[in-house]
């Protein structure tokens, strides 16, 4: 029962916050709405018993990426123009609704092979075994390290004063 109340509350707040990101006129308020949406997604992870991912979501998205986005808004002076739409607004709305309809139709009409097993509860140890253990994802982990290094170097090179 508690899980259901939590899910519906999080879903409603999350959808309203996501609508705020695309509908609010003020760019800074849209960014704050995005932070709220990230927090809601962390809550959704908790209801899915993914505790480690919820903490990672708060640390990386709410902590780091939102600060980056707000810093970029502060450094560019297009804020007073507000968040305008281009002339593709109506086709974009049509495409989004079409996509939502297609995915919703497919989701409802598919018979998912849902397993009744209760999930692993402290997921940290199981995830670590999955990532670093025998036959796990150790090669992607190393590639992710190289990707992050390349991204940091690329960002520094792009914003450096000549």
């Amino acid at each position, binding site marked *: 029962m508690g*899980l259901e109340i939590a*899910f519906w509350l999080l879903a409603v707040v*999350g*959808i309203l916050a*996501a609508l705020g*990101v*695309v509908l609010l006129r003020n760019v800074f308020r*849209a*960014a704050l709405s*995005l932070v709220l*949406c990230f927090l809601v*997604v962390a809550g*959704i*992870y908790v*209801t*899915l018993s993914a505790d480690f*991912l919820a903490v*990672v*979501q708060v640390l*990386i998205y709410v902590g*780091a*990426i939102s600060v*980056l*986005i707000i810093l*970029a*808004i502060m*450094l*560019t002076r*297009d804020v007073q*123009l507000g*968040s*305008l*739409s*281009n002339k*593709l*607004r109506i*086709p974009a709305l049509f*495409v*989004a609704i079409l*996509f*939502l309809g297609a*995915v*919703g139709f497919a*989701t409802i009409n598919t018979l*998912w092979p*849902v*397993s009744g097993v209760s*999930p*692993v509860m402290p997921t940290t140890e199981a*995830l670590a075994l999955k*990532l670093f253990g025998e036959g796990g*994802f150790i090669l992607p982990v190393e590639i*992710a390290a190289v*990707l*992050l290094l*390349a*991204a940091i170097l*690329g*960002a520094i090179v*792009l914003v450096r004063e000549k």
Partner: protein
Amino acid sequence: MSIGLEHYLILSAILFSIGLYGALAKRNAIIILMSIELMLNAVNIAMVAFSRYIVPLLLTGQVFAIFIIVVAAAEAAVGLAIILAIYRGRETIDATKIDLMKW
């Protein structure tokens, strides 16, 4: 009615559609980047929901979600750096006015 896999998938599809609309219809490049982050988060919800309901003991979906978060962080850093570099050169981040490579 108890909460099942479908609820999470529909929620994920709604968030993805909102992000899709924002990425297609907005002029401010930072708002477009924010919409893309929204879409990546929606995909993560779907991944974790599949992991929780279909293979609860394998956790593969959560591992994929971790890699998506890594790629999203790299994308945000490089994307915002590109936006700042464009702003320095052209004094605007309006995506309809950044048309140097359009024919």
